[in-house]
């Protein structure tokens, strides 16, 4: 018993410098706001508030012709699985009259061999793989993308 306590005391003494330096590291760094990127693991960065979803039903222009159109409405709890695809209850060809929603693109009826099917192709079934709603979150990293029209017009780099 006695030897065990002695061992424990020795181990504690040996670990002391490590423990102390750990405490200093945690104390020394002020909890500064780091907007992005890596930060010391000892720092706890308060999370930003959740961004609001943009659900104003207003179509956004696409930045390039092939861009999957964005979803301008709420899609909370929309079920997309083997049982049902909630999106297709409005955007399927035969449902668009009642819903007045835009029909899914004709490309979505083609399988990977270019064969046109009667309904949405399985590879296009999971809408939110490409189509996403937007939030009012500000981009963390800047972006110098320009669309084709502004490039053709010869605008300055960075101009939109």
């Amino acid at each position: 018993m006695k030897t065990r306590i002695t061992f424990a005391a020795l181990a504690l003494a040996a670990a002391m410098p490590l423990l102390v330096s750990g405490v200093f590291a945690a104390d020394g760094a002020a909890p500064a706001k780091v907007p992005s990127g890596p930060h010391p693991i000892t720092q706890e960065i308060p999370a930003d508030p959740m961004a609001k979803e943009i659900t104003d039903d207003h179509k956004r222009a696409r930045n390039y012709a092939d861009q999957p159109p964005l979803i301008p409405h709420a899609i909370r709890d929309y079920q997309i699985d083997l049982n049902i695809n909630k999106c297709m209850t409005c955007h399927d060809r035969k449902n668009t009259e009642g819903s007045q929603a835009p029909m899914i693109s004709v490309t979505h009826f083609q399988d990977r061999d270019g064969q046109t099917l009667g309904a949405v192709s399985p590879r296009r079934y999971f809408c939110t793989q490409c189509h996403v709603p937007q939030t009012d979150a500000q981009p963390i990293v800047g972006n110098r993308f320009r669309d084709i029209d502004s490039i053709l017009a010869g605008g300055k780099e960075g101009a939109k």
Partner: protein
Amino acid sequence: MKGLLSLAGRFWRVFSRPSVHFSLGFLTLGGFLAGVMFWGGFNTALEVTNKEAFCISCHEMKNNPYEELKQTIHFTNRSGVRATCPDCHVPHDWTHKIGRKMQASKEVWGKIFGTIDTREKFLDKRLELATHEWERLKSNNSLECRNCHSAESMDITRQNPRAAKMHETYLFTGERTCIDCHKGIAHRLPDMKGVEPGWNGTVSAK
């Protein structure tokens, strides 16, 4: 049969004659008190079975519909108002409540014989169970929805244009009722092949 008839005859003779041993006051007051206790007890028991805690005391309800409900807007939302199981699944007025409670004796049967006591059995039976609820809400004009969501109080100028248009076209005209379009809002949906969305013409208009 003859013995039974004579027994009934004897009972009727006792029942129809004035009491010899008990006073009128005892009988009336005693009857009144017994009535209060019976009615109070009945209603208390009824109320107990109308609590969410009672519904999810069975693992069938706790692990399946309740777990799914917890993720939806009828459970978690910005204002913290939530629907409990009986808010949607038990009619609020007395007559229909008792009718639904009598139907629910079938559910006791299902509990005893383990009709949906695994997730797989529940999923296999989900379309049938969901269809019962759709038909019930369709036939009472979505009464349980309207206990909270009334068309009079619905300000469609505060809704998104697409929601406002749909409600104007289908709800306010009485052409459709809530459940026709809003299926699967509090639980996951079964296989919906053959079940058309409410805004399609194939649904028989109410």
